[in-house]
């Protein structure tokens, strides 16, 4: 390109990485759930949308800053995760794979319809959050909320990773994901692990939703885009792989932003094509168990 400017390129790479970290956390929750019980939660994007609305309403009605809504979101979405698992998913697990896929599709449609009915299709934004404006980092200007969101996502991811690999409960989760029967024989309550997986998976969305509502529009269809990206990130990283989800999230975000710089309208087409190419070459995804 004739007007290729290195500083803009660096700027794009850094902001893309920050967004990619958020994609990574969203996808990590999805991947955790899939790893446990081989279910793709197609309502993931819609639940994220509800988390964003939760943050928005906490701010609008109770003047709670988006960043302070994070703990509230974690608890609320965690409880919601257990309810979804106990009320819906557990029954669907007995059915064929298609029923499991379709039930989360139905849930997504329901959640989107409810949001549209209750909150109207308007685009909303948190007017003046505590964190706003921009900062200079490494010589490039970045929106402060984006930086906070990126680092928040990174911290969330590290905490999640530490929980899964270092604590006993986390190891039980992993054991259940690897071999349900063996885990049950070792005295692990797999039923509780499933519920816990849903709680953690959706709590990730609670964090991501709060961090994003800090600077992004909130509207009923917002889940479609982020949902799609997260399904693709999980498939790209390898179903069930949590580091894979983070790496894939960052890769997808880089592709999206770099392509968006050269050919803005085709940026998502580029994301989908990269996914197709990689997954055709390596069907189990980057970090997947074959």
């Amino acid at each position, binding site marked *: 390109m004739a007007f290729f400017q290195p500083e803009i390129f660096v700027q794009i790479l850094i902001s893309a990485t920050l967004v990619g970290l958020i994609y990574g956390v969203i996808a990590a929750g999805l991947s955790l759930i899939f790893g446990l019980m081989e279910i793709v939660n197609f309502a993931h994007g819609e639940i994220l949308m509800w988390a964003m609305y939760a943050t928005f309403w906490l701010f609008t009605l109770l003047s709670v800053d988006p960043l302070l809504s994070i703990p509230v979101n974690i608890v609320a979405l965690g409880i919601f995760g257990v309810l979804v698992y106990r009320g819906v998913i557990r029954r669907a697990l007995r059915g064929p794979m298609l029923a499991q896929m379709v039930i989360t599709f*139905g849930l997504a449609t329901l959640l989107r319809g409810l949001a549209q009915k209750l909150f109207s299709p308007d685009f909303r934004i948190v007017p003046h959050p505590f964190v706003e404006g921009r900062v200079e980092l490494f010589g490039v200007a970045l929106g402060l909320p984006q930086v906070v969101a990126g680092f928040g996502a990174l911290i969330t991811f590290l905490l999640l990773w530490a929980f899964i690999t270092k604590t006993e409960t986390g190891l039980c989760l992993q054991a259940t994901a690897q071999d349900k029967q063996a885990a049950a024989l070792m005295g692990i309550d797999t039923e509780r692990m499933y519920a816990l997986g849903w709680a953690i998976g959706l709590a990730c969305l609670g964090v991501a939703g709060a961090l994003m509502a800090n600077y992004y529009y909130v509207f009923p269809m917002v889940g479609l885009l982020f949902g799609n990206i997260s399904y693709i990130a999980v498939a790209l990283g390898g179903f069930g792989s949590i580091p894979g989800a983070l790496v894939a999230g960052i890769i997808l975000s880089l592709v999206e932003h770099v392509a968006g710089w050269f050919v803005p309208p085709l940026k998502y*087409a580029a994301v989908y094509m990269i996914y197709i190419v990689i997954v055709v070459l390596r069907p189990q995804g980057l970090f997947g168990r074959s």
Partner: protein
Amino acid sequence: MAEVSATPQRRSSAGRWIVYAILGVFVLVYPFMRFQVGPLQVDFTFPYARHLLILIFLYALTAQAWNILAGYCGQVSFGHVAYFGIGAYTSSMLLMNFHLTPWIGMLAGGLAAIALGLIVGLPTFRLTGHYFAIATLAIAETVQTIFMNWNAAGEAKGLWLPVMKDSLLNFQWKSKLPYYYVALALLCLVYLATYGMERSKLGFYFRAIRDDAVATSSLGVDILKYKLVALSMSAFFSALAGSFYAQYVLFIDPFSVLHLQHSVLVVLLATFGGVGTYWGPIVGTAILVPVSEFVRIRFGGTGGAEDLIVYGGLIVLMTLVEPAGIVGIYRQHIRPQLFARKEMVDVHAMAGEATEE
């Protein structure tokens, strides 16, 4: 292989054919029905009553097209709207640029959809289960993005089809009546094709691939070939529906004919009725579409999404109660009751039939 007679033996009872005949006569005379039952005035001649049935035929057509690939052959696609959209765009663009009659355009759309299906299928049929489903989703989104930015296809503004004189050749009428019969004919076409497929070797291959791809392959069946056949059939009929939609509404854009929501809807309709069953798609559509239309009209306002709530809620409920859908409920609970005396022996066979995925 050909003379295997493992077709689920259906009772060719007279009762069954009487039901079919009544239904057939009903749909044929429906748009002319107008009578009084006590205080109740029944009138199906006004445009909305016809429109409702046209919607049902159109959605049942797409749902059955999806069912051929997903239900019979087990390849769950979440991107079927791509084929619907290709059909709509092909016939519309041929009409607008070359004044080609939409009938030929419809056929061309079907062939274009098959071509897209082959391009998509060759690489993605190596993937299975969720990987395949997500790949189809990604491809559909890519197709939407392409049409959104394609100048000749009207970009995001869409295409307004020229209004022409009423004629069969133009595929345009002021009355809804001709559309009604065209939609009905298209629906019959897909049902005939499915009937033929279900009873031929093709149907056995499809179901075998769905039930156990590895075993089928080890018996010497070329899995990739038959998956591509299933996808081609499925894409072709989806595209016919797309062309019909374009001619019926006379306006298409990437949001109306290529939106992900449409793919989801088709999946929900077929699953509600009973995925992988012959009557499932039409039963699901005939129940869900009127219910959602009723709710939308009765409780709807501007920007509300009552129909989404109904679709979502009912499908979650159905999957919890009976994953095999309405047809599954019929087979497991209603049919054994109806035929309890005559067919005690058949119950096990039917249970097996209904629990197959």
